[in-house]
């Protein structure tokens, strides 16, 4: 009896091993489904659904810029748009969402490039024949069809150049953002590359404000207490600017301690107008999603045919990489951004 | 004299159970009316009806001759009915005054507590009750169990009730403290309060009660002046049979099972004794004398400062109860609810707690086998439970204690330490436990019996050790000892 049972077990084990399938060594081996296409009839349009998958889906900056433009685009084109993703910053959950969405076969996928780790999920979508566009940060290791976004290294450089100018090339500076995020780390690198050319600039440190206004304010207050001669502070996430500005104002050093940061939410703009923040390095986020969605549409509808059959030719009829550029907002032009 | 409270034909049914059936009861001002009955006789249900926790299904309650319905505890307190529960409800981390005036502290206009007034009012109350050794500012946690009981009563009296219900007030206090309590009760009686007194200790009813009402299986038996009944009458009325703590023959031999030498811990010092095979060794003393502490030290719960423990003539190092169990010692703790029973687990799981491997077949634990074992003990100990899968918390105190004892019968240690094994248990279960313990001794176990009930010690023990303030005050032979002799050793400073 025991013998039979153990034989059965071994048999089952061998059968199981036979059913085992290792992951592909490289991308070439992946079976590729033909890209989904559609025609321009109204009926077809009404059935089309473009899905955006991001993380931290409720973040105001995402809602007001990325998602608003995407929805506006959908209404204009007469197609359905959906926005999915976890409420918090949770990359694995975003990956899970992408992979679950693939099964529901959307017309096109617009994915926030939060982390290189989502490359596999993007590849799965591409392999399933779903047009897939990445925005914000590129995932170069993936087989995404197109990318639109800002070069974060450039954001760092732009802040660095401006800060060096503001403090006259000397003094103590600090910077903060979310540590461990790829795009931020690129930005930090750009910033430091600029400061390297100024031997009189002393970088006091790199701090994690966890994308939280209170944390940014507390860090700044501590910094100002420890270094009363602090010349400037750079911020890299949406909440860095308001937090730094709050602490600098409370210390009575508005204008004395120079601030550059990213994003141009109403709060940021107001602080620029007040003269607390000297410069904002703004992204054109609306363009990421508007044109990203348009790329998807153009792929599906084969708007621009570059060959007899682009799919057979193995080519892609939308731009590979788009840098939307940066906005430089200072006291001089801030009024144009403040809505009447 | 007209009764202030009258119950007429009170009935209360739970699905499948008649908890109370046509119960009559009346209470006069200035009397102590005792309420007797086994566990499950309906005393708790009756008290819950009086305090508004439960509503009767039939019957009438008259207060000063007019019918009342008590909708809840707040209503009961408004009507002047206060209860002191068996389990203390005082909060150890708060002061005496804050406990007594819980949620009713005198407040200033802004809502802040006026501590001066709070302490003054408390002091006045304590003075009135002649509880002069309790300070309003003391933390309740620092008081003795008896003093805590007094605080509990003071808390109930702070609202100046006309009817005071005392549920087992002497269960956790010493003889001396009981005497103080009785003096307090007599004083309340003289003030014209009506007191309902519930106790398992029949002897004290004769000291304190004026009349006694007996309930049995939810039915009213009788009400009589206490002077007209004897202890045996009451027992007969409660259980329908004569239960006597007949002295069991000693079965002790000369073979030592457990020897302790110069045992010294934080609350006791230089305790030495030998427990022999087949012997029940009584450990007497006032509450707080250090009896439980000695047991806990032997069982490895509390650390020893000095001393040796030998089991079967071999020195044993016991640092944890698991070591003690391995050496063949079992322990039934005094605090059944917090230390003995697993209230939310089944009877079966309770029985197996100390010897889980008993339910193994090979190396695997099996619930079928566990159930068989539990069933065996259910029958052997006559545990009243519909199934061994029943939650132990739903059992009566006596049956819970049987489950704890079954645990050690299963683990089968040579030495069993039992600490107040019949505390808060009804008379019927009590005598069953007594039979069980003497049976174990006859089988050749050694039993160390800690008890505050002297009749229990006198009935069971071969020898009685008396501990006074952490030291051994003397040893008495079980068959010749008297309550007076034990108390003399235990109490004399």
């Amino acid at each position, binding site marked *: 009896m025991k013998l039979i049972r153990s034989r059965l077990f071994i048999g089952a084990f061998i059968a*199981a091993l036979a*059913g085992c*399938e290792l*992951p592909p*060594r490289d991308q070439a081996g992946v079976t590729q489904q033909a890209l989904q296409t559609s025609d321009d009839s109204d009926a077809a349009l009404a059935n089309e659904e473009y*899905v955006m998958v991001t993380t931290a*889906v409720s973040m105001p900056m995402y809602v007001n810029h990325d998602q608003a433009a995407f929805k506006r685009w959908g209404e204009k084109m007469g197609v359905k748009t959906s926005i999915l*993703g976890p*409420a918090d910053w949770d*990359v694995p959950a975003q990956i*899970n969402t992408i*992979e*679950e969405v693939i*099964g529901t076969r959307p017309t096109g996928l617009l994915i926030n490039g939060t*982390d*290189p*780790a989502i*490359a*596999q999920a993007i590849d799965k979508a591409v392999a399933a024949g779903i047009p897939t566009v990445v925005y914000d940060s590129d995932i170069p290791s993936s087989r995404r069809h197109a990318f639109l976004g800002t070069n974060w290294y450039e954001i760092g450089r732009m802040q660095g150049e401006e800060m060096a100018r503001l403090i006259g090339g000397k003094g103590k500076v600090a910077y903060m953002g979310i*540590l*461990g995020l*790829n795009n*931020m*780390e690129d930005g930090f690198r750009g910033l430091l590359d600029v400061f390297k050319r100024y031997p009189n600039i002393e970088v006091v440190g790199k701090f994690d404000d966890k994308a939280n206004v209170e944390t940014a304010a507390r860090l700044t207050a501590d910094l100002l207490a420890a270094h009363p001669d602090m010349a400037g502070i750079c911020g890299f996430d949406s909440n860095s600017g308001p937090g730094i500005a709050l602490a600098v104002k409370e210390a009575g050093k508005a204008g004395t301690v120079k601030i550059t940061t990213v994003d141009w939410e109403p709060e940021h703009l107001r602080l620029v107008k007040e003269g607390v923040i000297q410069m904002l390095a703004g992204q054109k986020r609306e363009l990421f999603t508007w044109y990203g969605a348009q790329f998807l549409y153009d792929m599906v509808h084969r708007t621009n045919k570059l060959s007899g059959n682009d799919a057979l030719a193995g080519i892609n009829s939308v731009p590979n990489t788009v840098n939307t550029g940066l906005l430089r907002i200072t006291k001089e032009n801030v009024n144009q951004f403040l809505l009447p | 004299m007209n009764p202030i409270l009258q119950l007429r034909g009170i009935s209360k049914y739970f699905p*499948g*159970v008649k*908890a109370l059936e046509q119960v009559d009861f009346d209470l006069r001002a200035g009397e102590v009316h005792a309420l007797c009955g086994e566990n*499950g006789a*309906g005393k*708790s249900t009756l008290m819950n009806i009086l305090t508004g*926790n*439960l509503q009767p299904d039939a019957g009438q309650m008259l207060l000063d001759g007019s019918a009342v319905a008590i909708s809840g505890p707040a209503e009961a307190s408004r009507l002047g009915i206060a209860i002191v529960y*068996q389990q203390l409800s005082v909060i150890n981390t708060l002061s005496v005054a804050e406990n007594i005036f819980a949620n009713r502290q005198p407040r200033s206009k802004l809502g802040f507590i006026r501590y001066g007034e709070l302490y003054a009012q408390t002091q006045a109350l304590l003075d009135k009750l002649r509880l002069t050794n309790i300070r309003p500012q003391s933390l309740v946690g620092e008081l003795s169990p008896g003093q805590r009981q007094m605080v509990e009563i003071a808390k109930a009296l702070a609202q100046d009730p006309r009817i005071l219900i005392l549920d087992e007030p002497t269960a956790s206090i010493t003889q001396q403290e009981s005497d103080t309590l009785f003096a307090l009760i007599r004083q309340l009686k003289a003030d014209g309060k009506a007191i309902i007194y519930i106790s398992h200790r029949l002897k004290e009813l004769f000291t304190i009660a004026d009349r006694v009402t007996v309930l049995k*299986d939810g039915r009213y038996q009788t009400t009589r002046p206490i002077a007209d009944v004897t202890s045996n009458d009451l027992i007969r009325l409660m259980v329908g049979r004569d239960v006597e703590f007949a002295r069991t023959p000693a079965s002790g031999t000369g073979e030592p099972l457990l020897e302790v030498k110069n045992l010294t811990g934080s609350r006791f010092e230089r305790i030495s004794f030998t427990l022999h095979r087949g012997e029940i060794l009584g450990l007497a003393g006032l509450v707080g004398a250090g009896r439980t502490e000695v047991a806990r030290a032997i*069982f490895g719960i509390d650390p020893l400062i000095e001393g040796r423990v030998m089991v079967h003539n071999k020195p044993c190092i016991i640092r944890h*109860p*698991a070591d*003690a*169990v*391995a050496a063949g010692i079992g322990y039934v703790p005094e605090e059944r609810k*917090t230390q003995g029973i*697993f209230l*939310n*687990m089944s009877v079966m*799981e309770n029985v197996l*707690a*100390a010897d*889980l*491997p008993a339910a*193994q077949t090979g190396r*695997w*634990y099996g*619930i079928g086998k566990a159930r068989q074992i539990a069933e065996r003990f259910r029958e052997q100990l006559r545990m009243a439970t519909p199934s061994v899968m029943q939650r132990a*918390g*739903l*059992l*009566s105190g006596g*049956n819970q204690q049987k489950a704890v004892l079954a*645990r050690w019968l299963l*683990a089968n240690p040579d030495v069993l330490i039992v600490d107040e094994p019949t505390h808060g248990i009804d008379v019927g279960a009590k005598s069953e436990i007594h039979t069980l313990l003497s049976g174990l001794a006859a089988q050749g176990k050694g039993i160390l019996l800690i008890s505050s009930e002297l009749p229990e010690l006198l009935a069971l023990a071969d020898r009685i050790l008396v501990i006074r303030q952490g030291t051994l005050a003397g040893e008495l032979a079980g068959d010749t000892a008297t309550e007076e002799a034990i108390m003399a050793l235990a109490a004399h400073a």
Partner: protein
Amino acid sequence: MLNQILRDRVYTLTLTTLLLCIVSAAVFPATFPTFENFRQLLLNLSIDAIVAVGMMLLLISGVFDLSVGSVVAFAGGLSAHLMVFYNVPVPVAILAGLGSAVLIGWINGYLIAYQGINPLIQTLAMMGIVRGGALMVAGAGIQNLPYWYNAIGQSKLLGVQMPVWYMGLVVAAFTFLVNRTVFFRRYYYIGGNEQAAELSGIRVRRMKLYAFILSATLAGVAGMLLTSRLGAALSTLGRGMELRVITAVILGGASLTGGVGKIPGALLGALFMGLVSNIMVIARVSGYWQEIILGLILIIAVWIDLALQRRSAVRQGLPRKSVNTPSPEGVGIEK
């Protein structure tokens, strides 16, 4: 009898889950009841479910561990760091990652069980410390993990990705062990009444230490699987996982006071939460609704339990307020 079944969360949750599946299949016939969808759904919850098994064991013994999410990130990050930056062979790196998890579990367990630090405080502090460590080893994320490491989480068996099978293995093994070994039965006693367990000769402190080590080790395993499945180690992995897992385990029938819960309940709780999130994706409902709905479901589940308990307590004739602490004089049983 019916009451008994209704009070066993494993039954009620299975029933609710099945019902939810049937309704979803009816509403989304094309997208929900497909092999691809279930394969993906199970893959997505497999990591949480493995961590939930350890958490279930902790909750049975009346404690919990908030640091598991950080351990997932740290253990995975450490092995990735060693493999990518120091070319450490895959098995050695895995052992190092698991070893770090064991060590973290040991520290938690030792300080809680032997030194008496409150589990909430200890594991909360550990959560921060280990997250900081994860940030150090994983930095801005580590990609390009060795092929054989990725193969652990990305291989498929019978068309289903490996983490699902590992989850099945872990759940099956622990279900068996917890039901059939004396060692694991002891955790119910510890959770039921710690003092009584100690006085029954159970070495409570040692058992708790083991439970924390076991839970952290399972979190370490989860960290390996997650990083190998993603092919990358991120310092943000497992953020918020601790609360998600505790929610799953409580849905699965555990109680914060200890003594109750079954291992399959951990899987069911995770499955139910995965299912809700999957249906949300299919129905294209935004992320924050998911949190609101899960919160509501948790409250309802616990509330139904209390209501059932109260009903059975009334039947037994106990006054209402003593539902949780029955008086030693249980009324009406003694006959």
